[in-house]
C-alpha cells in the first residue's frame, strides 16, 4: 500500500463525511434530550458523568448540578448510556420526538470498587469493556490529595502492575520508568508520553553537564496537581496505533478540566520535610604496629594471616552517622497552589497556578560551619543549599462547545523551574558520596594543608559544593483539539500541539574554588538546548448500527510528529578572579548540535460490537520515519483484539456473586525508531593543531546502514476482568508475551576498521518479555461509619535475549548480552566456594588450589538479571468517622533480581576501608569476595552481585475530609487535610548496600555506585475549597 493511496483514501473518507455532514435537511427529524443525573440513594447530583447516545457520536457531560443536554438526536427510540467512575454503568431507553425536548433523568448506583469505565486510546475515549487490552489507570487527582507525592513517578510507583518506577534519590533527580521489562538491547526503553493528545518529551538523564550521577527526567517537570488521570498502555498489543516508538508502552496523561457550574476555587498547600534515614556503610581502618615496616600502611586481614604485618588496632568511623560530620540534614519543601474550575454549557475552564520550593537534604556539616566561622570563610547561598528546586507551574485548560456537534479543547501549560544539583553519586573523587564511601576509617584525617577532613576521603562538602550546577527550564506544553460531529454517525477529530522546552544548564567553579587541578582556575559551562516536539493528529470515525445486534465503528487517521533538538554549548576555562561567565575565561570553547526526526503515520481501525457484549477490533498502522534507512520505506503494524463480556451472555446464568466477567485478548505490533543519523554514512569535523596553528580537519565517522528499519515488537496478551460480590471485589489478570524482532543491536564494529563510531545499528536481534499482571481490589468492610479496602497489584516479568543475530556475545566488565539469557545479565567468574581451611578465621588466596581458601570458576558464569522479576504492592485503607478519616498504607516488594553493590566493590578493592578487608569480625563471605576482587588473578567482582529483593514500607497516609459545616464555618466549600509519609523504611532485604534502589543514574543497567539512597518524605497537605 503506497503512502499516497493511504492519504488519498483518508481524504476521501473525510470529505465524504464532510458532505454527509452538510445534510441540513435532516435537522427536521431531530430532537433534544435533557435531564439530570442523580445518585440513586442520596439523590445528590452527579457532575462530570458521561452521557452518550448508543451507536452514535452524540453525547454530553453533566455539569456541577448533574444536568445535561444532547441536541440533534435522531427522532425515535434511542438508548442512553451513563458512565461515571465509582458508579455502575446505566443504560436507559428514551423516545425522542422530532423538534421537541425529551427529559431523561438518570439515577446511578455507586460501586464499591471505583474503576474508571472509560479509557483513552489512540482513537479517542472508549468504554473499558470494549477494549481488548488491560489498561492501567491511576486516579492522579485522588492520589495527590491523599499521599506524599512529589513528582509524576510517585503517582505511578507501585500503582500499576507491570510498571517499574525507579525513584529519584535527591531533589530534582530523575526517575526511570519501565513497562513490561526491557525490550530493546540498544535503544531507549523509555515509554512515550502523551499529554492531552499530544506527544511530550520524557527523556531521562536530561542534562548536558555532569554531576556524576543524578540528572533530571523531563517527565519530572509535570506538576502532579494538574493531572486528572494517568493511563498506562503497556505494550504493542495496545499501543499499535501510537506507531513507531510506542513499543515500550505509552503513558497517557490527562490534565484536569473544567466542570460547568459556578467557579470552584481551591487553595492548597503542602509542607514537606525530607530526611535521609538510610544506613551508609562504615569505613574501617587497620593500624599497623609501629615496629613493623611503616605506620602509614594498613594491616589487612590477609596480611595478618600471612604474617606480613602486626596489627596495633582497628578503628571505624561512619561519616553519615556522626552528627558533626554528616552532610544530610532535614530538607524542606513547600507548595502553594490555587486553582479554579467552572464554566457554562458552552465554555468550561480549569485554571491553575502553583509555586513550589524545595531545599534538599544535602547540607553543610556542622564541622564545616565551625571551620568557616573560625577562618572567616563563607559560602554563597547556592553553595549553602546545593540541592534545591524552585518551580512555578501554570495551566489553563478551556473547553468550548460552540455548537452541538463541535467542541474544542485548548490546553496550555507553562513550567518555569530552576534546579540546583550537587555533585553526588558516582562523581569520582570530587563528589559527596564518593567522599563518604571512601572515608579512611577514622575521624581526624587531614589533607595536605593540615586541615582536618573529619572522616571524609579527600574533599569535604564545603569544597564539593563550590562547584555549582543548575538547570533552568522554561517549558510550554500546548494542545488544541477539535471534535466535529457532522452527523450522528460521523465524527472528525483534529489535535495539534507543541511541547517546547528551553533548557539552560549551568556549571560554575569559581577561580581558586575547584577541587580538581584541571579546573583549579575555574570554569563555566553554559549550555542551552531547545526541544521542540510537534504533534498533528487528524482522524475520522464513522459509527453505524448495522443490524439490531451489530454495531460498527470505523476510524481512520493520520499523524505527524516532528522532534527537534537544537543545542549550543559554551565553556570558559581559566576564569578571572570574580569571573562567573564564559566570557571571563582565558580559554573559550563552543559547540552546537541539531537533530531532527519526523514520523508520518496513518491508520485505520474497524471495530464491531455484537449485542454490546462482544467487541472485535482490527487495525493497521503504517509509518515512515526520517531515521529509516534509504533502502527501507514503510513499516506496517497490525492489531487485533477481542473483548467479551461473558457475564451478559444468557448461557452464563448470572450467578449472584458475579456482577461482571469479561474475557479479553489482544495482539498487536509497534516499533522503536533508530536515532536520527544512525542510517547515514558521514564524516565529522575536528580540529588539528599544526605548526601553523589550529586548522579544521575531517575524520570518517560512521558507516551507516541503508537498510535500517525500526525495531518491531509484537505482543499477545490474554486475560480477564471481573467484579464480584456486589462489586466489592474486582480482579484484572493478564498474561502477556512480547517479542521484539528486528531488534536493533548496536553491533560493535571491529576496532581494526578504524571508523569513528564504535558500533553500528543493525536489525539483528530478538528479545522476549513474558509475564503476568494482576490487580485485585477489595472492599472488605463497608459500613456507614467505617470501611476497610485492600488493593494488591502484582506482576512478573521474564526477559530473554533470544538471538543476537550473527553478532558475538557482547561482553562487558560485569555484564554480557548473550543469547538465551536476560538482557544486561550479570556475568563474571564466580565465587564457587570458600572455606577457612586453616581455621585462623581469615580467608586467604593461594595460587595452589589445595591451600587456597576460595574457589573461583575458570570462566565467566551467569549470576542473574538486574531487572526485578516480581513486583507486588499491597495497599490497605481504613476509614473511620463516617468514613471521613482515612488511614492508608502501602508496602512494596520487588524481587528476583541482583543489584551490583559497586560501592562496596570499590571500598574493598580500592578504598581499602570495607569490613571484609579489615574487620576481624567480618563474615567469611565478606572476606572471600574481598580476597577474590583483590588477590585472585580474575579480579572478579561477582561477590558484589547481591540479591536485590526487598520489602519496603512505601507509603503511609492519614487523610481527613472535614465535615461540610467546618468548611462552611470558614465560608468555604470543602476542607481536606492529609498527613503522609513516603519511603518509611525497609521491612526486609538481604541486600547489604545502602539501599537496593540507590542508583545515581537512570540507564538500563546501572550499578549502585557511590550513590545516595531515596530519602523519606513527611508531608502535610491542606486543601480548602471555596
Amino acid at each position, binding site marked *: 500500500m503506497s*503512502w*499516497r493511496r493511504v492519504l*488519498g483514501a*483518508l*481524504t476521501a473518507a*473525510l470529505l465524504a463525511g464532510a458532505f454527509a*455532514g*452538510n445534510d*441540513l435537511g435532516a*435537522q427536521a427529524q431531530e430532537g433534544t434530550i*435533557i435531564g439530570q443525573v442523580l445518585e440513586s440513594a442520596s439523590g445528590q447530583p452527579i457532575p462530570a458523568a458521561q452521557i452518550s447516545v448508543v451507536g452514535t457520536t452524540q453525547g454530553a457531560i453533566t455539569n456541577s448540578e448533574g444536568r445535561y*443536554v444532547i441536541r440533534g438526536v435522531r427522532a425515535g427510540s434511542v438508548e442512553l448510556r451513563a458512565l461515571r467512575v465509582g458508579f455502575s454503568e446505566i443504560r436507559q431507553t428514551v423516545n425522542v420526538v422530532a423538534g421537541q425536548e425529551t427529559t431523561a433523568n438518570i439515577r446511578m448506583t455507586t460501586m464499591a470498587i471505583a474503576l474508571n469505565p472509560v479509557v483513552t486510546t489512540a482513537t479517542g475515549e472508549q468504554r473499558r469493556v470494549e477494549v481488548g487490552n488491560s489498561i492501567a489507570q491511576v486516579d492522579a487527582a485522588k492520589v495527590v490529595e491523599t499521599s506524599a507525592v512529589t513528582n509524576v513517578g510517585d503517582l505511578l510507583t507501585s500503582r500499576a502492575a507491570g510498571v517499574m518506577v525507579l525513584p529519584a534519590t535527591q531533589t530534582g533527580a530523575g526517575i526511570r520508568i519501565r513497562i513490561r521489562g526491557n525490550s530493546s538491547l540498544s535503544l531507549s526503553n523509555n515509554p512515550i508520553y502523551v499529554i492531552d493528545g499530544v506527544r511530550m518529551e520524557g527523556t531521562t538523564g536530561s542534562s548536558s553537564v555532569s554531576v556524576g550521577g543524578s540528572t533530571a527526567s523531563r517527565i519530572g517537570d509535570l506538576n502532579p496537581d494538574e493531572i486528572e488521570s494517568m493511563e498506562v498502555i503497556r505494550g504493542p498489543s495496545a499501543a499499535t496505533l501510537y506507531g513507531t516508538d510506542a513499543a515500550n508502552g505509552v503513558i497517557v496523561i490527562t490534565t484536569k478540566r473544567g466542570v460547568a457550574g459556578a467557579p470552584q476555587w481551591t487553595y492548597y498547600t503542602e509542607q514537606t520535610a525530607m530526611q535521609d534515614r538510610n544506613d551508609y556503610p562504615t569505613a574501617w581502618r587497620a593500624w599497623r604496629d609501629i615496629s613493623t*615496616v611503616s605506620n602509614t600502611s594498613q594491616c589487612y586481614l590477609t596480611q595478618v594471616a600471612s604474617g606480613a604485618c602486626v596489627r596495633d588496632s582497628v578503628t571505624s568511623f561512619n561519616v553519615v552517622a556522626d552528627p558533626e560530620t554528616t552532610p544530610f540534614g532535614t530538607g524542606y519543601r513547600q507548595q502553594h497552589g490555587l486553582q479554579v474550575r467552572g464554566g457554562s*454549557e458552552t465554555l468550561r475552564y480549569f485554571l491553575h497556578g502553583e509555586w513550589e520550593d524545595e531545599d534538599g537534604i544535602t547540607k553543610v556539616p556542622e564541622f564545616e560551619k565551625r571551620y568557616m566561622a573560625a577562618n572567616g570563610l563563607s559560602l554563597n547561598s547556592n553553595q549553602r543549599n546545593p540541592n534545591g528546586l524552585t518551580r512555578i507551574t501554570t495551566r489553563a485548560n478551556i473547553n468550548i462547545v460552540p*455548537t452541538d456537534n*463541535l467542541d474544542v479543547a485548548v490546553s496550555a501549560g507553562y513550567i518555569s523551574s530552576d534546579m540546583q544539583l550537587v555533585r553526588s553519586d558516582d562523581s569520582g573523587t570530587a563528589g559527596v558520596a564518593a567522599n563518604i564511601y571512601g572515608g579512611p576509617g577514622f575521624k581526624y584525617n587531614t589533607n*595536605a594543608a593540615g586541615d582536618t577532613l573529619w572522616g571524609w576521603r579527600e574533599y569535604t562538602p564545603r569544597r564539593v559544593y563550590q562547584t555549582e550546577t543548575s538547570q533552568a527550564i522554561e517549558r510550554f506544553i500546548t494542545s488544541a483539539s477539535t471534535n*466535529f460531529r457532522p452527523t450522528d454517525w460521523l465524527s472528525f477529530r*483534529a489535535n495539534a500541539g507543541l511541547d517546547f522546552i528551553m533548557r539552560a544548564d549551568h556549571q560554575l567553579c569559581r577561580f581558586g574554588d575547584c577541587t*580538581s*587541578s*584541571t579546573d583549579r582556575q575555574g570554569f563555566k559551562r553554559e549550555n542551552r538546548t531547545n526541544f521542540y516536539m510537534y504533534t498533528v493528529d*487528524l482522524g475520522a470515525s464513522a459509527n453505524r448500527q448495522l443490524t439490531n445486534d451489530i454495531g460498527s465503528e470505523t476510524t481512520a487517521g*493520520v499523524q505527524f510528529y516532528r522532534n527537534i533538538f537544537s543545542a549550543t554549548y559554551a565553556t570558559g576555562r581559566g576564569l578571572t578572579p570574580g569571573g562567573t561567565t564564559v566570557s571571563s575565561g582565558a*580559554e573559550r*570553547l563552543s559547540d552546537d548540535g541539531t537533530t*531532527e526526526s*519526523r514520523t508520518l503515520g496513518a491508520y485505520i481501525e474497524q471495530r464491531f460490537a455484537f449485542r454490546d457484549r462482544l467487541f472485535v477490533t482490527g487495525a493497521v498502522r503504517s509509518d*515512515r*520515519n*526520517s531515521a529509516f534507512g534509504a533502502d527501507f520505506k514503510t513499516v506496517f503494524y497490525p492489531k487485533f483484539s477481542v473483548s467479551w463480556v461473558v457475564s451478559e451472555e444468557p448461557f452464563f446464568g448470572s450467578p449472584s456473586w458475579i456482577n461482571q466477567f469479561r474475557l479479553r485478548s489482544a495482539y498487536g505490533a509497534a516499533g522503536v525508531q533508530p536515532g*536520527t543519523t544512525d542510517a547515514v554514512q*558521514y*564524516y*565529522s569535523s*575536528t*580540529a*588539528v*593543531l599544526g605548526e601553523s596553528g*589550529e586548522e*579544521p*580537519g*575531517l*575524520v*570518517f*565517522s560512521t*558507516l551507516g546502514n541503508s537498510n535500517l528499519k525500526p525495531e518491531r515488537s509484537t505482543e499477545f496478551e490474554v486475560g480477564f476482568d471481573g467484579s464480584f460480590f456486589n462489586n466489592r471485589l474486582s480482579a484484572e489478570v493478564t498474561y502477556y508475551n512480547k517479542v521484539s524482532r528486528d531488534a536493533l543491536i548496536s553491533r560493535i*564494529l*571491529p*576496532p*581494526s*576498521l*578504524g571508523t569513528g563510531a564504535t558500533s553500528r545499528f543493525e536489525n539483528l536481534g530478538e528479545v522476549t518479555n513474558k509475564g503476568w499482571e494482576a490487580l485485585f481490589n477489595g472492599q472488605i468492610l463497608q459500613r456507614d461509619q467505617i470501611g476497610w479496602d485492600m488493593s494488591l497489584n502484582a506482576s512478573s516479568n521474564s526477559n530473554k535475549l533470544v538471538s543476537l543475530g550473527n553478532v*558475538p556475545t557482547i561482553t*562487558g566488565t560485569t555484564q554480557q548480552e548473550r543469547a538465551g539469557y536476560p538482557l544486561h545479565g550479570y556475568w563474571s567468574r564466580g565465587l564457587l566456594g570458600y572455606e577457612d581451611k586453616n581455621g585462623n578465621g581469615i580467608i586467604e588466596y593461594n595460587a595452589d588450589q589445595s591451600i587456597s581458601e576460595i574457589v573461583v570458576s575458570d570462566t565467566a558464569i551467569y549470576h542473574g538479571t538486574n531487572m526485578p522479576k516480581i513486583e507486588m504492592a499491597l495497599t490497605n485503607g481504613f476509614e473511620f468517622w463516617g468514613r471521613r478519616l482515612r488511614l492508608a498504607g502501602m508496602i512494596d516488594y520487588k524481587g528476583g533480581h541482583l543489584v551490583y553493590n559497586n560501592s562496596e566493590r*570499590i571500598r574493598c*578493592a*580500592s578504598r581499602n576501608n570495607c569490613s571484609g578487608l579489615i574487620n576481624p569480625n567480618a563474615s567469611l563471605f565478606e572476606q572471600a569476595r574481598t580476597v577474590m576482587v583483590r588477590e*585472585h588473578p580474575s*579480579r572478579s567482582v561477582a561477590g558484589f552481585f547481591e540479591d536485590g529483593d526487598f520489602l519496603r514500607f512505601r507509603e503511609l497516609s492519614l487523610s481527613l475530609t472535614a465535615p461540610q459545616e467546618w468548611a462552611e464555618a470558614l465560608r468555604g466549600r470543602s476542607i481536606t487535610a492529609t498527613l503522609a509519609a513516603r519511603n518509611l523504611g525497609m521491612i526486609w532485604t538481604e541486600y547489604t548496600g545502602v539501599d537496593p534502589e540507590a542508583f545515581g543514574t537512570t540507564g538500563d543497567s546501572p550499578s549502585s555506585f557511590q550513590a545516595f539512597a531515596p530519602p523519606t518524605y513527611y508531608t502535610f497537605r491542606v486543601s480548602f475549597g471555596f
Partner: protein
Amino acid sequence: MLTHTSRTSRLSARRIFRSAALSTLAAGVVVVSACSPTDILDLTDPDIINPSDVQSPAGANAVRLGALARLATATSGSGEFFMLSGMFADEYINGDSFIARQEIDQRIITVQNNFLTDANRSLHRARLSGEQAVQLLEEFSPAAPGWHRAEMYFVQAYVANLIAEHYCNGIVFSTVTDGREEFGTPVTTTAAFERALDQVIAGRALITGASADDERVLYALQVLHGRILLNLNRYAEAAAAVAGVPNDFEYLVRHSLSTSSNYNWLRNNNERRYNVADNEGTNGINFVSANDPRLPICFGGDAVCAAPPIEVTNPLRDDLFTAPVVQMIWTARESEVALLKGQEARMIEAEALLATNPGSAIAALNDARTTVAGLAPLADPGTPEARVDMLFRERAFWNFGVGARVGDMRRLIRQYGRAASDVFPVGDWQPGAKAGSYGTDVNFPVPQAEENNPNAAGCMDRNP
C-alpha cells in the same frame, strides 16, 4: 440552570462553525495528501559531513589534517595509548581504582579490557584516516606537495609499527573502501612490521622537495624506518636508514584545549592515576631515583611540584596511597609530544654497532647525550650483556612515555635472548598498597571487540 439560546440562532451558529471546521479540515487533509511523504521526511542534518563533501582538493586536505588529529589523539591524547603502554612496561604504575587499568599494570590483561579496546580503536582510526587521505589526495589533489601524502604514509606506518610492537600475533588491519567495510585477516607481528616498512618506503619516495616540511616528514620517516628494521632484526639496514637525521630532530604532535589534551600530562600530573615507576617489579628501570635530566621528576606537593609550571599540589595520588610521582617533560595540557627524536637515530646506529664495534656504539650514545646538559658521557661497562643493558636504558630514557619501551622489552626477549621474567616487572604487585601479583603477559591481546570481524580469531599465540 442551563441557558438556552433560540433554535434559530443556534442553527445559524452551527452552520457557520460547521462550514468553518469543514473547510479547515478539508484544507488540512488536502495539504497533507498533496505533500509527498518523501518531501516531509527528507531532512538535512547540519551536524554531519556527507562523503561527497570530501571529494575535492579542500576536502582531501581536510581529511589529511584529520589524520594528524587522529594520530595525536591515539598516541598522547585521549586514546591514552602511551600511558597504557608505559604502565604495561615499567614506566608507570597504576595509582587509581580502575580494575581495567590495574590488570594492565599487573600484566594479566583480559581481552575485554575497555581501555585497551578504546586505545586500539584510536590507533586504527589514525591509520584509516591516513589511508583515506592518501587516496583522496591522489584523486583530488595530485598537485599537492609530496610531503602531504608522505606524511599520511608515515601515519599509517607509525601506527602499524606501534601495533606490531605491542600486540600478539594475530593483528588485523581492516579498512573502509568506497564507504564499505573490508575486514582484514590476522597477520603476525612480523607481517605487520613488513606492512609498516612498505608504507615507510612509499612515503620516503614521495619526498622530493627541500622545504622544512619535506625535511620534517623525511626525518620522521627515516627514524621510523630504522625502528621498523630494528624490530625486524635488520640492524645494518636500520643504521643506514637513519643516516643524516640530526640529533635535535623531533616529530611533534600537538595538543590544546580545543583539539586534544595531552594525556601524558592529564593522567599523570593532573589526575594522578598513573605514577612514574621506580624499579617496578624488580626488573624495572629506576626512572625516579636515577635523577636523569632527560626525565625530571617531582613528588606531588613538594616544592618543585607545587611551583609553576608544574603546580601539582596534591600530596597523594588518586588512590591516596602515596605521593604521586610526576614527570616534568610534559607540564601542561598543551604540551607537545615528540613521537620520534633525532637521538633515536643515534640509538639505532649504536645498536647496529654494539655487537661488532662497541666503542663506536658507545660513541653514538654519547653523541646523543651531548644534546642534554648534565648528562655525562657513558663508559664501556665491559661486557656484552652490560652493553645491551646500557643501550636499552639509554633508549628508555630518550623515549620515556612515548610508547617505545614495550617494543624494546619484547626485543630484549626476542632478539637478545633474555627471559621475560628478567625483563618485565615480576613478583608482588605494589606491595603494601594494593594486592595480588604480576602476571606473565608480554604483549597486548587482540581486543575481544575484534571478534566482530568474521575473519578475526584473537591471538595466534602470546609469544614475545
